[in-house]
């Protein structure tokens, strides 16, 4: 079975490589074009479905909701995950390390992190979305409400009634 599945996987790889050799143009909302491999673009379920639907692969895909800076970063992620393989332990570890560095860099610039999150959500890049949202969740985790509020500048906008209800359901705060 081991060889069987190996052969199947290899065949699938070959096929993927073939389709991956096609290039796809993504255009940011500023009109800047980014050329990526199809394998990379396929990381996005949104683009994948457009490609599979026989959409305008040649003409490229305009992404009116993503700016160039964000798109460049998103593509960086997609390239890494789309063009590289993750079959062996080492390859997976390399990807995990990439993810870690990638998110650490994003974490330093929160505003940009949110942009990337939105883009990942829009483009349905599951891995990236999980990565960024987890990062945001981790930022909030373990902080007291005051800490979070000062860290993020969240306005207190709850009414007295809300407070009453919260008291009812939470005493940790």
């Amino acid at each position: 079975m081991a060889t069987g599945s190996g052969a199947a996987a290899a065949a699938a790889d070959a096929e993927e490589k073939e389709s991956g050799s096609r290039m796809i143009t993504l255009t940011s909302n500023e009109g800047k074009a980014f050329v990526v491999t199809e394998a990379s673009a396929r990381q996005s379920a949104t683009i994948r479905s457009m490609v599979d639907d026989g959409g305008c692969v040649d003409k490229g895909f305009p992404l009116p909701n993503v700016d160039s800076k964000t798109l460049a970063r998103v593509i960086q992620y997609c390239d890494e995950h789309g063009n590289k393989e993750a079959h062996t332990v080492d390859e997976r570890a390399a990807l995990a390390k990439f993810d870690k560095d990638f998110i650490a860099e994003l974490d330093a610039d929160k505003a940009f992190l949110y942009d990337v999150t939105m883009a990942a959500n829009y483009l349905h890049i599951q891995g990236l979305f999980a990565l960024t949202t987890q990062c945001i969740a981790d930022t909030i985790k373990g902080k007291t409400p005051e800490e979070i509020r000062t860290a993020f500048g969240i306005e207190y906008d709850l009414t007295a009634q809300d407070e009453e209800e919260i008291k009812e359901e939470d005493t940790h705060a």
Partner: protein
Amino acid sequence: MFRRVTLLWTNLLNRSPAPASRSPMQHSNTCNCSSLQTTRFFFWNALEMRDNFGISICFDKRCIVDWNREEVITLASLNSLTILQSSLFEATFFTVLKCFFAFFTKRMRVTLLWTNLLNRSAAPASRSLLQHSNTCNCSSLQITEFFFWNALEMRDNFGIAICFDKREVVISLASLSSFTILHSSLSDTTFLTVFLECFFAFFTSRMRVTLFWTNLLNTSPAPASRSPMQHSNTCNCSSLQITGFFFWNALEMRDNFGIWICFDKRCIVDSRREVVISLALLNSFTILQSSLSEATFTVFLKCFFAFFTKRIYTRVGSKLLQNLCLSLSPSWTQTMKAQTRRVVLASDSLLPLSRLLPRRLRRPPISRAAAPASSPQAVGSIASMNTRKGSGSPSSQQDGDDSQAVKATIPDLPEDIWCHVHSLMPLRDAARAACLSRAFLHSWRCRPNLTLTREAFLPEVHIVNASDIIDGILRNRSGSGVKILKLQLEGISFLCLDRWLKLAVTPTTEELIVMLCTSITAEYNFPCSVLSSGIRSSIRYLKLGCCAFRPTAELGTLRNLTSLSLHFVHVTEDELECFLSNSTIALEQLNLSNCEEIICLKIPCVLQKLSCLVVAGCCRLRVIESNAPNLSSLSFSGNVKLSLGDPLQVKRLSMIHSKVVCYARAELPSVMPNLERLAIYSNDEVSQEHMKHKSVLRDSSPLRQIPEHHHCYLKSVKMIGFSSAKNLIELTCYILKNAVSLECLTLDTLYGVRCFPMGKSVVREAHRAVRAVTTYIQDKVPDTIKFTVVEPCSRCHNTEAGGGRRRRRALDKQLWLGNSLDGTQHRAQSIKHRWA
């Protein structure tokens, strides 16, 4: 007379040629027409239906109930305004508008009319469900209208008894988008002088104005989509739009599902509604400002405040105004001052509305540098805001500005992303974050996963208080229901548990985990009615622990249940068999542990998809009789007689019992020839504690050679409890030599758990084993193999504390009980002993 006039008006406005087609057959053609034509088509159609077929329902609704028909008619008139403007001179058009408004102001159901007038953009491209898909391609504006039309259509077609109250809301919601369109399509003067002023003058006298205002202000395009499928698109909208979406959504939920919670919050509790409404207002201001020219915006604001001054919620206006003054450029501030003074006088005792303002409204946007000189009052306010946040000194003001970028972006994440983030946090953090802001509170309330475990509450909260808290959490929930519910608690009254399950389990629940603790006096009887109600088709994963599970045949089929786990559950073999054959057709994984009532486990052949069966610790179990045709992974413990429907399917096998090595050697190869993965645990045949086999370190004779066989498929070997026994070393050497595809070899000299208190003899033997590995094995391992030796921990296994044995026994028990049950179990157990 009125009816006649209305029709007249309609006709006047609806002066474009009649629809291209009138019969259903020609209907298809209309799809190609412009959306304007389609709208008219609807109108004509409605009338036509009445005229041609005399359909009573339609007729009833449209004619007997007079205002209903009026609506339909006026609906059709919406589009004509554009046409009218393009075809008339401007002056004429003004007159028409004025007459039009004057006319409608006197009407009773004017709101509706207005709504429709405003909602003058093209009608949805399609109306039937089939055509619905086309609408997805339309712009978001079209979709909104579609919704609106749809709402009316639903009422008309199905006579849905949504009270008029609600519909009015829906209708006015629909008018939101038209404002933008109106402005873009009319000339500035028309829009300002005639339309806006008439509009405000009109609405000031209406009762439901607030809502309307909300909608008017909330002029941003409506959400791109309304169904969950389309939902994802909305993420592309700006956060402002999303807020709008939230508001829309909330109303929609109420309307579509009649969820009373929402309704409660928005309508019955009046102050609440106010909040929601004002929330919606706030965002629209920004949008409005950015989309309108300065002059327009001024007129708008003037009218706006003039309106609110007269309303009860003056405070809303006054605070808004104050904050607006801060956020607008100095020239704006001038024009607003008079208004401010008037409004501020009005009231001081209502909502603390400043909280409701989005940040961007609280600070001067670009004019930050210029503002200090021209409006010291503004700076004062900002400073005081900063002080409130605990950063009053001038230097920290700088800090505040530096972090501005971060601060401003936080709320920009859309609602559903926040919900997702929220669901990633542990319960405690999520609850804490809910106290931060309204948006956070909202995402807390709709959190899809609730993990109510002891850890989430202890140590701060006593478990008795915890039940009050859980009550609160569940009662205050909103949104679409819990997807994953995990109840893992002890000492909770059964009444509470019943109540929680009833509250929290909704038709969206996919995973349900109820793990309790063995109770001293009684056992909890899991209410099977929970399963038979709404979640029958949603539940995918069910895990029960320490309770009684008494399913009956009436339970029905759980269509999507793929995984079932029962731990320490009282269930008889008949009950289980009945449940399996009647209710769990889609089951893929079955996990039973410590279910002591089962002696013979029968898996019926209806479980076509069952691929994985795990049975552990069921001490009375003697027979496993499986007829599931696709069982490929099997794991069990104890001396059990196996009877499998198709043993050739089995690829993974794990066994724990005393004679397993023997069995594996003698019988297994012939019974399950397709085995790919085998794990065997034997206490009797191999043991570190009482070494039955001679250690290689004490036997100087050379290693024996086992006859060679090539094992070309063996990839991974792991030995747990590896000792220095000579035959074990010989076996390892044999494997290294003959398993040509070996990738991974792990020799664990402990029990599979490092840093686990062990008996002295075991640790001593483990050290010996490590020595044996270095002497006899290490050199023989080729570089291509991943070789791991788990050695005793130098810290945990060096010194033997006095209480070691006792501790070990306790931990042994814990291991036996499984990881899911923590230390609480021991306490319960020890209490039991004491009572006994």
